[in-house]
């Protein structure tokens, strides 16, 4: 698989910007700077190539002993988030050194990116909200306490069981999701801020991972709607 660069950041919220007279909805991400905290190589006991990126300085007191030692080895302040970036290419791994800072300028304006985050938790939800089921067809004619229920969940002796994965009520949200092929609207390197056109998963102040797009790697798109008249 082709190598895709990744960075860690934080979602700050949404707003709008004007580009060529057009109003563009954007998500504001605090992106980086990321620090290389650890480097793993094929030759070492790890047995594979990767770098560990850290984002967001935290207080020394807040790191436990094990983590404090890990950061001390890299001569870095403790970080809030650590994520590993696999680098299968042997030559590419040499581009990274422990302690190296990575900034948002690895992305270009208009570039397609994928943004992964933990979605907002919705708690225990019924089937109508969780799976967009329809509920009862009528709310009258004697229908009693069945208006938002699931219908039948199976047949009779064949198959004699409820199929695995049957959609039912349960916990919704708070899972990792990726929004693919969103475009970088603007990069404000002095503030380490990246504006993404459209929305990304997660709450405000939630941590996100920003990748080069898996399906449109390195492609540059237009931020505006580009209406021809």
């Amino acid at each position, binding site marked *: 698989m082709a190598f895709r660069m990744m960075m860690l950041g934080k979602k*700050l*919220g949404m*707003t*709008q910007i*004007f580009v060529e007279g057009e*109003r563009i909805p954007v998500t*504001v991400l605090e992106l980086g700077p990321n620090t290389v905290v650890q480097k793993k190589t094929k030759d070492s006991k790890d047995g594979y190539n990767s770098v560990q990126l850290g984002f967001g300085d935290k207080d020394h007191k807040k790191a436990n002993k094990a983590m404090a030692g890990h950061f001390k080895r890299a001569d870095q302040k403790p970080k809030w988030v650590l994520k590993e970036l696999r680098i299968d290419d042997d030559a590419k791994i040499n581009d990274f050194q422990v302690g190296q800072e990575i900034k948002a300028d690895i992305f270009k304006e208009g570039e397609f990116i994928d943004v992964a985050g933990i979605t907002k938790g919705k708690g225990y939800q019924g089937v109508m909200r969780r799976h967009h089921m329809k509920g009862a067809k009528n709310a009258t004619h004697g229908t009693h306490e069945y208006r938002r229920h699931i219908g039948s969940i199976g047949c009779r002796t064949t198959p004699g069981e409820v199929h695995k994965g049957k959609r039912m009520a349960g916990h919704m949200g708070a899972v990792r999701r990726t929004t693919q092929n969103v475009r970088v609207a603007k990069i404000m390197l002095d*503030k380490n801020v990246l504006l993404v056109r459209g929305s990304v998963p997660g709450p405000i102040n939630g941590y996100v991972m920003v990748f080069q797009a898996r399906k449109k790697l390195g492609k540059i798109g237009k931020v505006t709607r580009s209406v021809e008249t």
Partner: protein
Amino acid sequence: MNKVIEEIESQYMRKVGPESQGLRVGDTVRVFVKIKEGDKERDQVFEGIIIGQKRGGARATITVRKISHGVGVERIFPLHSPSIDKIEVKAAGQVRRAKLNYLRGLAGKAARVKERSDDRVTKKGE
């Protein structure tokens, strides 16, 4: 709100613009919108009554309603959009509601808005 977001929005905020004009719901306005035709640029005028406004700094909008060839047309204008040249107030209206959605159900003479005499407004304040 986050400071970074405030800073981004302040970049797009117009210092002297429609918002400082003190537009009010019920006013009849002429909105001059820049239109690109090939490489020429000209203004198109949309004239109607403000039937609602949304505040929010650089994200503020107004909704303007007019009757065009017997059909009601509503347009939402972002007040800080660079494609809005200027907004002229033709007449001030005296209304008692924040949103004039009731105008949608009315036509002709019934869909008029009482004019605001600024005399009365100032007298009240004295």
